């Protein structure tokens, strides 16, 4: 499959057309969607109309934008006007949003063609897409294994060559972990860089939309298109979208990169070997390597699994059967609320709502939620100290390559542990990227993670590009 960069160039120059590129994408979806369960909804008519409009504008000599005619997959927790948006939950089945998320408007303004909505763990709670009410997504590289999650459908769409780009959202690793398991580039941008308007909330102080793609340059193009201040999101950073694509080839000469012990601790040997090779590749490219221990990272998982459920229990209170989605009738309002929520939510969502409700309840607030917020402060301070000694940090994205279906579903803690290396970045509101580097068990891809301070996206893309080149990818 062509890169997004290649498609945009060819569509703008007239060598190809948005319509032709879209038909390629739709054929690839048609060939494998039934087997892999990636798209929950394919908007053929809307996408064809958008592609035609791009082609008409090219014919008139207009500059359509940096993503001219590029098909893109959208995680089904982002609103698109009139397009079913489910969060992979029965509680939103049949709901069609009356407005676009800001990211959708920005993509269309850049000439991109959204083709449909991808599967996820219900309300983005999970690391394998096995929590979807509409069945799991299969990993295109090995259909007996999970694609990761929660943005598993978006990652699988790109890995299966259905679209060159996809949008995911990352609350505790939900872009980077599936990127690693599917052999893709995936970035969690700094908190506030991308508008959350129209992203259905899971944990509002942690959620962030970001790109998934096969190449570093494509990810940079996508992030540059969607980033920048949005008055509709009061947590949106005040500045315009940063220049990213122009810095992709800046390299790492003179940069200090710290290998963090806690970001490889407990990882499989082949994953650790890939991280070590990546460190060597950065050194060869002129970076200075240091080793660091950040013990606070070990507390990330505990803090996250109180903070995120606490925020979720509040955010998901809106699913009460009154204004949208499912309603299961009861004799009065309270009975209707309870019947609706009981029928509409799956087990993992219920687990997290109850965990969050408990952590916030009288008598337990200080011991659980309050303590977790203090650990969050310590995490932020630990990152600040680390960034006095290094420009970027490096470690593994996940402890292992893609795992088999059912291997972690009966034990929530085992599933949560697959996010142990990605969670610290979300707690601190900073940026991190996963880039495929080498292979592990069964020849499956390994993801190496680069972490940087807030607004270090350009540096992260440049370092990821060094690794991409070291792997012999163009």
């Amino acid at each position: 499959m062509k890169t997004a960069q290649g498609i945009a160039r060819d569509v703008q120059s007239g060598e190809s057309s948005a319509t032709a590129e879209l038909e390629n994408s739709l054929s690839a979806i048609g060939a494998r969607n039934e087997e892999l369960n990636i798209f929950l909804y394919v908007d053929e008519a809307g996408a064809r109309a958008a592609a035609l409009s791009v082609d008409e504008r090219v014919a008139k000599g207009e500059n359509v934008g940096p993503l001219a005619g590029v098909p893109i997959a959208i995680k089904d927790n982002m609103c698109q006007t009139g397009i079913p948006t489910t969060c992979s939950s029965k509680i939103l089945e049949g709901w069609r949003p009356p407005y676009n998320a800001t990211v959708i408007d920005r993509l269309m303004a850049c000439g991109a063609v959204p083709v449909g909505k991808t599967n996820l763990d219900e309300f983005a709670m999970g690391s394998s897409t096995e929590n979807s009410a509409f069945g799991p997504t299969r990993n295109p590289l090995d259909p007996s294994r999970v694609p990761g999650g929660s943005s598993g459908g978006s990652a699988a769409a790109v890995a299966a060559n259905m679209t060159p780009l996809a949008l995911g959202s990352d609350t505790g690793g939900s872009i980077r972990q599936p990127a690693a398991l599917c052999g893709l580039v995936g970035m969690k941008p700094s908190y506030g860089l991308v508008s959350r308007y129209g992203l259905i909330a899971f944990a509002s102080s942690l959620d962030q939309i970001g790109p998934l793609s096969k190449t570093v340059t494509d990810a940079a193009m996508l992030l540059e298109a969607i980033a920048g201040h949005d008055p509709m999101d009061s947590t949106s950073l005040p500045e315009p979208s940063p220049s990213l694509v122009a810095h992709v080839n800046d390299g790492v000469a003179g940069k200090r990169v710290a290998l963090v012990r806690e970001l490889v601790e407990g990882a499989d040997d082949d994953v650790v070997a890939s991280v070590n090779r990546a460190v060597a590749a950065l050194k060869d490219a002129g970076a200075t390597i240091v080793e660091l221990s950040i013990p606070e990272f070990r507390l990330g998982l505990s803090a996250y699994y109180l903070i995120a459920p606490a925020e979720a229990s509040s955010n998901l209170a809106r699913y009460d059967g009154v204004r949208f989605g499912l309603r299961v009738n009861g004799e009065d309002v309270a009975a209707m609320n309870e019947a609706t929520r009981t029928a509409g939510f799956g087990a993992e969502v219920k687990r997290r709502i109850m965990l969050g409700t408990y952590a916030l309840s009288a008598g337990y607030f200080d011991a659980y939620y309050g303590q977790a917020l203090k650990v969050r402060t310590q995490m932020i301070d630990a990152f600040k100290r680390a960034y006095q000694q290094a420009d970027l940090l490096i470690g593994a994205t996940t402890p292992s390559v893609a795992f088999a279906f059912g291997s972690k579903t009966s034990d929530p803690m085992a599933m949560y542990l697959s996010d142990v290396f990605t969670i610290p970045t979300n707690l601190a509101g900073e940026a991190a990227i996963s880039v495929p580097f080498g292979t592990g068990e069964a020849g499956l891809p390994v993801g190496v993670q680069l972490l940087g301070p807030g607004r270090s996206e350009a540096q992260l893309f440049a370092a990821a590009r060094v690794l991409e080149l070291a792997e012999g990818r163009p």
Partner: protein
Amino acid sequence: MTSPLRREDVAHVAKLARLSLTEAELDLFTEQLGQILEHANDMSTLNLEDVIPTAHPFGLVNVVRDDVVRPSLDRDVVLAMAPDAQDGRFAVPRIMGEAP
């Protein structure tokens, strides 16, 4: 390892969260939530008395805009997505009993 979380705690929390659980679910969730809270005990031994809690990665400030009328969602479009609507409003089952 004993869980500090009791079955009746889970039942109470489910009620607060407007979820009804079967007996089997109550058993399972008590065990699983207990394990997660047990893991969180690695934080309870820390002395963090002087640490300021962080609820948000940046210090949030109120964002205001000029008080001018802007287009908003169309009422009929929004109500068309509701499970039940009547006379331009959301309709719900009765909230109070019949008048005496």
